[in-house]
């Protein structure tokens, strides 16, 4: 049995696929690709497949980790080639590596939020407004967790935040606490900023760019 870490890119129509559906989708893709998976034992055997940091519905990802276990030796290149031949549009394997770091080492992640408006002025205004809001250090929102809903200051989850206008778009680059200990959904941040700024963009894309461990070291 070999543990293998797949790094996939999720974009386009695939961002509308929820985490549970992603699980089903990859299970089938791995079967179509003929990759010899290790199955759990017991009454209801199922293939071992673990998403280390599930993406929320609507968020795209540049390089997302997914662990599988294979029962035969199969090269990284071969896995990548076979999977990319059968994955649906919007999902792509960008790399296959050994599973080095553990999921609980994940601390933060970098996001790019692009909010498009009808004019450059509006984009400018939005970028200015959100920079101001974050600058105050206080942005309250209701956050849902397993223990229920509670009101938190989102700024406590923000490690860095930069917003600027680019044509009709306001582009935000932000690093947020991410992982099993403390986590902020970039979608929730954007939604709260929209409300606070009292502006609503025409279209919106959120992309998770990179995932980090302690000391801004890339998760691998």
């Amino acid at each position, binding site marked *: 049995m070999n543990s293998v870490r797949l790094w996939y890119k999720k974009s386009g129509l695939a961002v509308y696929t929820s985490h549970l559906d992603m699980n089903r989708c990859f299970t089938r893709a*791995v079967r179509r690709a003929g990759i010899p998976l290790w199955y759990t034992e017991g009454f209801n055997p199922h293939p071992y497949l673990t998403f280390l940091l599930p993406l929320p519905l609507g968020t795209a990802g540049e390089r997302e980790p997914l662990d599988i276990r294979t029962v035969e030796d199969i090269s990284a290149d071969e896995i990548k080639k076979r999977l990319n031949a059968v994955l649906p549009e919007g999902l792509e394997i960008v790399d296959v590596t050994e599973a080095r770091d553990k999921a609980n080492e994940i601390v933060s992640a970098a996001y790019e939020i692009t909010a498009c408006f009808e004019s450059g002025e509006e984009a400018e205004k939005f970028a200015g407004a959100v920079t101001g809001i974050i600058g105050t250090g206080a942005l309250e929102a209701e956050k849902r967790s397993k223990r229920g809903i509670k009101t938190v200051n989102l700024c406590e989850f923000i490690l860095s935040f930069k917003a600027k206008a680019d044509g009709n778009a306001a582009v935000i680059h932000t690093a947020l606490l991410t992982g099993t200990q403390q986590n902020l959904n970039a979608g929730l941040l954007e939604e709260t900023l929209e409300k606070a700024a009292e502006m609503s963009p025409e279209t919106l894309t959120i992309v998770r760019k990179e995932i980090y461990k302690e000391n801004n070291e890339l998760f691998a």
Partner: protein
Amino acid sequence: MYPEKLEKHLLRVQKPGRYTGGELNSVVKDRDSVDISYAFCFPDTYEIGMSHLGMKIIYSLVNSRDDARCERVFAPDVDMEEILRSENIPLYALESGDAVKDFDIIGFTMQYELSYTNVLNMLDLSGLPVRSADRKGLTPLVIAGGTCVCNFEPMADFVDLTLLGDGEEVTMELIDLLKEYKKKGAGKEEFLKAAAQIPGVYVPSLYEVEYKEDGTIAAVTAKDGAPGKAVKRNVADLDKMFSPETFVVPFLETVFDRTTVEIFRGCIRGCRFCQAGFLSRPLREKSPAEVERECRAICDSTGYDEISLCSLSTSDYKGLETLLRSMLPWANENKINIALPSLRVDNFPQELMEQLTSVRRSGLTFAPEAGTQRLRDVINKNITEKEVLSTCAQAFSGGWTAVKLYFMIGLPTETPEDVEGIANLAQAVVDEFYHNENKPKGKSVNVSISVASFVPKPFTPFQWEAQDRPDTLIEKQNLLMQCVKSRKITVSRHVPHTSFLEGVFARGDRRLCDVVEYAWKNGCKFDSWEEHLKLDVWMQSFEKFGIDPFFYTARKRDFDEILPWDHLDFGVTKAFLKRENERAHEGLTTPPCREKCSACGAAKLNGGVCNELCKAVV
């Protein structure tokens, strides 16, 4: 792909994956590269529609042509409908995002009566008039197929034509004809007259219906050269028929999240309540080799790990053992689960059973349908209490602890003893568990019984029978609840109001078109969903047009009454159905086709078990 305008709304609806398209194996063709565009519409949500085998067949079939494309359309849920309406986005097809109204053929598959209002709603969301007469152009042509079109009279004013029976051949012929008429710039009326000549096509507007004063039908007259009786299509050889080798694989979890492969059509059993069994006669089988080929191809192209072998009665498949012996090693090696719905385990080889369950263990279900042997004889359901109990005993010894039993109430000739019999049979199964020496240690048994309300359907021996009124059904349900004494038995009941509406439309006539339209205009849709059903609006709609809905449900018909579907021919003759009705009332059973031919009339459709029997005689 969805229309661009929708993008910013997608994350505001439940399960946006229903509306995006882009699933694996979906076929996207350029509109200008084909002559005919076909929008296949399922009048319910994505998760239900994507589980439907008929759609998968027609989708692959039409897309196998270079001159045509087929795209999928589902009923948007309430939240999405609101957005489509407020943003003025016409209903679109999932592959291209093109508006449904720009397709040449808009085809609905009609699986249940309570989806009728959804058809009107989808036409309206497309920006089309709901009535056939108000759609003047040749295209879009609105057509329907599926079980319900055996009596689609309550929808006759809305569709341009229906396809009766198997769709594989007639769909292709219809596309050919439409292509020809579109090219020569013909009008809709001219086309419909020509289409009515294709066997398997029924054009409701070419039939005049007159009524008697008592509301029954006086006469149905065919006009403009339409056949006096529209005959269903029957594919004689399933091995030579088009079968898909790949399915669209949804991102979302659907109702049946697995692949389905047909093993045969038709049924030899002749259960007298079962419409599907009579509509699809004669029984025609696929060869085991062909079934296995399809299973392997579909699993390879989809990655599914479960195959359901689909038919009306798995155990009647002659090649079952051959198929399983050949296919099980492959299935087990690839961790593929084979589901055999409605398998009768009593005569099934034990070693095959063990191999079948080696991947995943599924539940044990029976459909005795009625609680007493007397009533089971009336409905010709040949399963005995002894068979149920001996199979359960076998299963309990093998480690099973849960059994599901399906029943109906409201069957013709039913008495309180029959209702009580349901509880008694369930109790007998519970007792069987506790008397079993080899039962799983330290475990308890769970017998769940599901009780549906019987709805008499066209083209069955019970097509003349009265349907129980909702209050009677509730009384019977309550009686059953009183009779259930054990906590090991759980009962699930159905809402009798949905069965009532289903009954009205199952045996309704054309005068109901106004009612359907009015109810839809007043907010009725998704009527099969309990949370959406607006019974009061339906009752107001009946009243508005002076129609007593119980005329269609609670009235027992005379054998000589002209029924709204008498001008359609599904093979089985009225004389046969009448004989079967009389035998039912005498409590006489009728043997399955393979034992003895009962001259139902389907033999004229050619193929399958009828030929098998003829050869045996020669």
